[in-house]
């Protein structure tokens, strides 16, 4: 069965003053209709650049896609003619951005912006298009949609603007939506409303959703599968529950442990960490006040610059589990099995095809860590 969207070994470079930076270094992921894939990563991990390359809105120059395939229903978007691609982008794929205010035209009423989608792509008359626009605003639960259609974007609150963005993306009932940090700029209570709306619409229209975020909490509620990115590569892919229960990559584990939780007071030592002595920051700490949490687990250091990528595993300078092999040898994407069996399915670069076929293609788990087994059983 062909997947709705499949990204294979995508590579993006950026030409900079100081040299060529590989922002995305061989990323593969896929999503099926009606499912949600969350791409989780910190700033600079390449998660947004990957999405821009998939949507075909990468700024080039300075960016350049240097390899890989983006298959939409089995057809490679990257080799397609521009006109053909534009048609798919308009109708079958849509994107939601973080900053709704700058993504909407400030001098056109939101009703007219929505109606324009129908006029241009569906050839509707102005009156019909207007009516559909109001319906759509109603659908994303904008109160008094009929009256507010005549308002300009700045007259809406942040949450309402994000709803309008969602309405724009939904207008042509696309098969795939890519949402890049859709709720990052919003307040918690509004964030919850918008995420719920997005999840509901995805269910209703059986769309595929690629949710790009840095927020571990948002992901946990809505995603089916999670791909964790670090330094331009995917380091782990897993169904959501497995990832949170038993991460198979030290970076994932570090991320999960370094966020304080609102539902847990105090001690954060929820998971075992390899080698307590070597990475400081996990030793039990004299809790100061009566009700303050102890020391958080902290991943040491900061993410690398794409210009000076460490040798071997890009995470090794920050990794508590790193050995000599990690410094020398780039870990392939291993297929993660919960029993003892293990096989390297891909040697990144040389033999990525097989990795996609068996590893990511299924709902199986992958991890780009030489010691994933130890991590899984830690």
């Amino acid at each position, binding site marked *: 069965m062909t997947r709705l969207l499949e990204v294979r070994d995508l590579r993006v470079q950026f030409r900079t003053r100081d040299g060529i930076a590989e*922002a995305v270094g061989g990323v593969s992921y896929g999503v099926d209709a009606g499912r949600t894939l969350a791409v989780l990563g910190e700033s600079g991990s390449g998660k947004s650049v990957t999405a821009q390359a998939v949507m075909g809105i990468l700024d080039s120059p300075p960016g350049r896609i240097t390899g890989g395939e983006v298959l939409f229903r089995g057809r490679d978007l990257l080799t397609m003619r521009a006109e053909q691609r534009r048609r798919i982008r308009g109708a079958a794929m849509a994107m939601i951005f*973080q900053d709704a205010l700058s993504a909407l035209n400030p001098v056109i009423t939101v009703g007219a912006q929505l109606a324009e989608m129908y006029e241009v792509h569906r050839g509707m008359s102005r009156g019909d298009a207007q009516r559909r626009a109001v319906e759509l605003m109603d659908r994303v639960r904008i109160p008094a949609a009929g009256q507010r259609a005549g308002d300009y974007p700045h007259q809406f609150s942040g949450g309402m603007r994000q709803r309008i963005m969602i309405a724009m993306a939904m207008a042509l009932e696309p098969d795939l939506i890519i949402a890049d940090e859709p709720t990052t700029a919003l307040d918690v209570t509004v964030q919850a409303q918008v995420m719920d709306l997005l999840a509901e619409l995805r269910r209703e229209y059986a769309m595929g959703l690629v949710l790009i975020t840095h927020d571990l909490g948002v992901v946990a509620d809505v995603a089916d599968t999670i791909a964790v990115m670090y330094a331009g590569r995917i380091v782990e892919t897993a169904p959501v529950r497995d990832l949170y229960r038993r991460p198979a990559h030290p970076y994932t584990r570090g991320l999960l442990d370094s966020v304080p939780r609102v539902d847990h007071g105090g001690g954060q030592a929820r998971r075992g960490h390899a080698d307590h002595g070597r990475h400081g920051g996990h030793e039990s700490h004299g809790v100061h006040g009566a009700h303050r949490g102890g020391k958080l687990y902290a991943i040491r250091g900061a993410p690398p610059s794409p210009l000076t990528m460490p040798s071997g595993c890009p995470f090794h*300078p*920050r990794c508590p589990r790193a050995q000599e092999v990690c410094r020398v040898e780039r870990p392939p994407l291993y297929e993660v099995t919960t029993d003892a069996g293990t096989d390297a399915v891909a040697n990144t670069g040389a033999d990525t095809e097989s990795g996609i076929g068996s590893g990511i293609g299924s709902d199986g788990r992958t991890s780009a860590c030489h010691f994933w087994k130890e991590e899984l059983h830690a």
Partner: protein
Amino acid sequence: MPEPFDTRYDMTEAIAPAGGGGGGGAVDPAASGPQGLKDRPRRLTLPWRKEPGRRLGGPAAPTGRGLWSDAWHDLRRNPVFIVSALIILFLVVIAIWPQLIASGNPYHGDLARAQDGPAPGHPFGYDLQGRDVYTRTVYGARASITVGICATLGAALLGSALGGLAGYFGGWWDALLSRIADVFFGIPILLGGLVFLSVVTSGSVWPVVGFIVLLGWPQISRIARGSVVTVKEHDYVQAARALGASSGRTLLRHIAPNAVAPVIVVATIALGTYISLEATLSFLGVGLKPPTVSWGIDISSAATQIRNAPHMLLWPAGALSITVLAFIMLGDAVRDALDPKLR
């Protein structure tokens, strides 16, 4: 723009004495000492920074190596900058030492040769009074450059001081100053020049400089005011205030160095227009006056003879055009290099 992609990276890794993961090995005892909180700088830059919900791509994106070194890096590779800078350098040199390339006397006239065309040793020909046009064109650079630089300095200093104070203190002082600036904006330059300068009898450059400063400072003060208002809101200025820093200290240490870039850009472009303004005023007879050698004066006297001796007009006019163009090109190049929005 979901995640502003800043294409300017740091190469600070190269200067980090701590080295980094590349050679440090997996087990780095220096970095994992007994104190977990001490992570020695290993990776010094986050090239893609994400600031949720904040203004995107705003004017203050001080990644990279800093505004000035980035700008210099850009300028060195900009042919427009190199060409205009070389022209300006040449003009400044001949303004100071005109005898370097012109051995004659700009005042020496030989009426017998009045309006003659080019002759050996006199490539540009002669003017109405039989003076050598080449020599006069070379000597004319001094007046133009002097007026341009002095007027720009004066307008920039006055304008940024007044504008900067207005922007920093705000309130009634700001309102008053803005209205005064509006009044000066409202004066038509030529009309003002004819009225103010016709009462001056001195033939030196200073009345002209003074007049241009008088009409030029409001433009600079507006730019300076806006720039200061922007910088004033930055957290580092708030931090200084929270520390109890005095207004003078805050202005000089924190605001001025960060607000000066737009003023420099505007002043550089204004320099070119001031030079042409001087020529215009001299042409009209209210700017510089003979015996001062000035392109404007020469153009004025040549204008009546344009049919029978066009060379008299063309050489000083050409020199003027090239000079103004060079300064405006320089200003453009500097603006491109300093304005982060164009990056």
